[in-house]
């Protein structure tokens, strides 16, 4: 049965969205699916987004059906708004940032490790399972709304951060298929999805906004992550085309950090007045600070705003305390902390803040988004002409940029760096909260009905770690070189034979390789062998392994192989070992790193 709907799913770090468009209409009309979810125990409401939180129910709560849904009974967990609201009072029972764990290759993402460091009586789930639960909820919401149009038969696009490497994408896909999404599922990078949302809202007029040679910087600052992408406009066969040129590294810094920083600042103001806030009040303060940030930093925001924290009991006014917060202080705090004035040649500082490490995730040591941006832009600069690499246009995405002052802060930094050549904001409509989901639905629609596509291939190059032969030194690891198997920009639906010396694999045993990726080495081609590299050039991801079944007719216990890499039409990275004599091949699968921490 042909698909009737194009569906775009934004599986966000803090909020998930499902957008859809009928494939029957002549122009794509993208709508958001209202998502029925628990907003309090036993209370279901439809909201436009599903907070990506999971709450593990207490025993009594399961029996008294507190978290039952229209489509499920005796639920032992809850997702969505009710889970988010539990995160303040029951942090040990709440999973908050499953998506950030998906790309953290130092832990086994299939192990039940979340909530992180939960007490023994709280059952844990794996990052993959938590993601699956969010997607299952979206699928069930779809089924409720469209019982006769199973989601498995629709054209579905799911977004991932551009900075996700192949193994994080594979894990996302695994969670999606387990949740009932179709095999034909396409993964789309979020900044590209935001660009598609802009293309969708501009219609054919987009060609008036961008010209051949223009370079669009997409700056997507979400709740928990920052995702950078550069898209170039060029002319091919007389038609204007878009090509994704580069993506940034995975940065665990976003709007939540800013709200927390502001909440910390305000709680200090309370302390000066002799009020120490309890944990419940701190969360309430966090929410007030988010709202105050948007009000104070709006284009015509007030000079000061009173932030109050209500009492914990039913006495609201009697228990409430308040402080005056000054706009300039807030602007200075957030601009200096996150949109720091810096030189374009500056590198992010690597010094770890110890407090962050306890949470388990590798949060950025340097919260200055501008320094990460500078370092990203520097990597795209070719030596001869520094100017030509300045982006010409800028597209903001993410709720952070609802504050005009923060948009302006980023524009100011770009003006510092590039002067008159600084990029201008892309003309047109911008929906900072829902652009990714909407853009994904638009992309799904165009994949069936035709329309503009952003090309680009793989955003990273990939490498297999090969131990070099030679005398072993007792106690020292053998030196390793990195063999390029996938070049930057390898197109979907293509494959590459990797020229190399033959590699001997043992029959009947599992062969395991360390895998590295790079978002900065754009010139390596398959077969290139790197002897040394810097720590931020090549990033290790999950290992890959394959077991060679014993029916190889080589007769020897070693089988000489070479690598063959492939990017499928759906953008999936595949790596195989090919027996040089017979042509027989074995596909490698992602597995856990040897040095995983859990």
């Amino acid at each position: 049965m042909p698909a009737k709907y194009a569906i775009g799913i934004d599986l966000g770090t803090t909020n998930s969205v499902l957008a859809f468009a009928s494939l029957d209409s002549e122009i794509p009309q993208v709508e958001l699916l209202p998502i029925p979810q628990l907003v309090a125990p036993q209370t279901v409401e439809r909201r436009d987004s599903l907070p990506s939180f999971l709450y593990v129910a207490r025993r009594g709560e399961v029996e008294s059906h507190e978290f039952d849904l229209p489509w499920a009974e005796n639920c032992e967990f809850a997702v969505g708004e009710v889970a988010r609201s539990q995160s303040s009072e029951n942090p040990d029972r709440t999973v908050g940032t499953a998506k950030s764990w998906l790309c953290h290759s130092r832990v086994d993402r299939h192990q039940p490790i979340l909530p992180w460091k939960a007490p023994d009586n709280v059952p844990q789930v794996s990052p993959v399972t938590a993601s699956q639960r969010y997607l299952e909820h979206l699928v069930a919401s779809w089924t409720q709304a469209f019982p006769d149009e199973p989601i498995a038969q629709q054209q579905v696009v799911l977004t991932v951060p551009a900075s996700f490497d192949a193994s994080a994408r594979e894990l996302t896909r695994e969670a999606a298929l387990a949740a009932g999404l179709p095999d034909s599922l396409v993964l789309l990078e979020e900044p590209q999805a935001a660009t598609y949302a802009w293309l969708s809202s501009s219609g054919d007029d987009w060609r008036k906004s961008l010209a051949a040679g223009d370079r669009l910087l997409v700056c997507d600052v979400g709740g928990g992550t920052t995702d950078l992408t550069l898209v170039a406009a060029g002319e091919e066969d007389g038609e204007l085309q878009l090509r994704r040129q580069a993506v940034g590294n995975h940065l665990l810094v976003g709007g939540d950090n800013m709200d927390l920083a502001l909440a910390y600042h305000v709680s200090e103001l309370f302390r000066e007045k002799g009020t120490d806030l309890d944990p419940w009040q701190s969360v309430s303060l966090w929410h007030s600070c988010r709202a105050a940030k948007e009000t104070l930093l709006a284009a015509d925001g007030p000079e000061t705003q009173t932030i109050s924290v209500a009492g914990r009991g039913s006495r609201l006014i009697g228990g409430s305390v308040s402080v005056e917060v000054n706009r300039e202080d807030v602007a200075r705090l957030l601009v200096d902390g996150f949109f720091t004035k810096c030189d374009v040649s500056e590198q992010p500082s690597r010094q770890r803040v110890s407090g962050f490490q306890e949470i388990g995730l590798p949060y950025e040591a340097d919260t200055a988004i501008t320094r990460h941006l500078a370092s990203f832009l520097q990597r795209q600069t070719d030596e001869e002409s520094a100017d030509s690499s300045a982006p010409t246009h800028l597209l903001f995405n993410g709720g952070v940029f609802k504050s005009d002052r923060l948009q302006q802060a980023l524009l100011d930094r770009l003006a510092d760096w590039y002067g008159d050549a600084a990029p201008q904001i892309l003309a047109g409509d911008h929906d900072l909260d829902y652009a990714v989901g909407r853009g994904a639905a638009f992309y799904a629609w165009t994949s069936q009905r035709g329309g503009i596509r952003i090309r680009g291939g793989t955003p990273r190059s990939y490498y297999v770690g090969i131990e070099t032969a030679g005398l072993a030194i007792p106690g020292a690891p053998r030196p390793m070189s990195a063999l390029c198997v996938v070049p930057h920009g390898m197109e979907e639906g293509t494959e590459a034979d990797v020229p190399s010396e033959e590699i001997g694999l043992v029959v009947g045993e599992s062969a395991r390789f360390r895998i590295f990726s790079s978002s900065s080495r754009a010139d390596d081609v398959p077969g290139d062998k790197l002897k040394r590299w810097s720590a931020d050039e090549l990033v290790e991801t999950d290992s890959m392994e394959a077991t060679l079944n014993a029916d190889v007719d080589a007769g020897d216990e070693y089988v000489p192989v070479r690598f063959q890499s492939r990017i499928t039409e759906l953008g999936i990275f595949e790596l195989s070992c090919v027996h040089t004599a017979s042509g027989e091949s074995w596909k490698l699968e992602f597995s856990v790193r040897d040095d995983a921490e859990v």
Partner: protein
Amino acid sequence: MGRLSLAWRVLTNGELAQQLADLVSAAAPVITEQPVAAKPEPAPVVRNDAVTLLASLQREARLVDFLMEPIDEYSDAQIGAAVRDIHRDSRTVLDRLFAISPVVDQSEGSAVEISDGVAGGRLRMIGETESGRTSGTLAHHGWQAGRCELPTWNGSTQAVGVIAPAEIDAG
């Protein structure tokens, strides 16, 4: 509801669907009857939507806390400080659940065309209407709900009147 809820679970739970499919395909009709013979569901408890609305306003904006608190002892500044958040959060709830907008989308004080009579309850005339007069001045633009999307509640008899449960700190 037993059969329906099973159907929901089958739709959303691949494993259960597989188990059911195995049951259906593997054996005699006697076994396929089993899932249907679930215990009868008790009649759902009905709660007045007004309580559900109060619960939303209390949960998200603490409006009931505010209205139930005696305010004589507080200064205007104290009340004002607390009201800002209550106002913001109550407004969010009303916007989301009711999409409230003016009945007449014009600024107050401007001239309004009066068609036939008072337009079925959408307009209300103040003072005497002279015959033949076709316009008046907008004194209040009115309010209307664009939708009504209250949460649905599915709790027990004991909780039917609960606007906010009592909270117990276990620590």
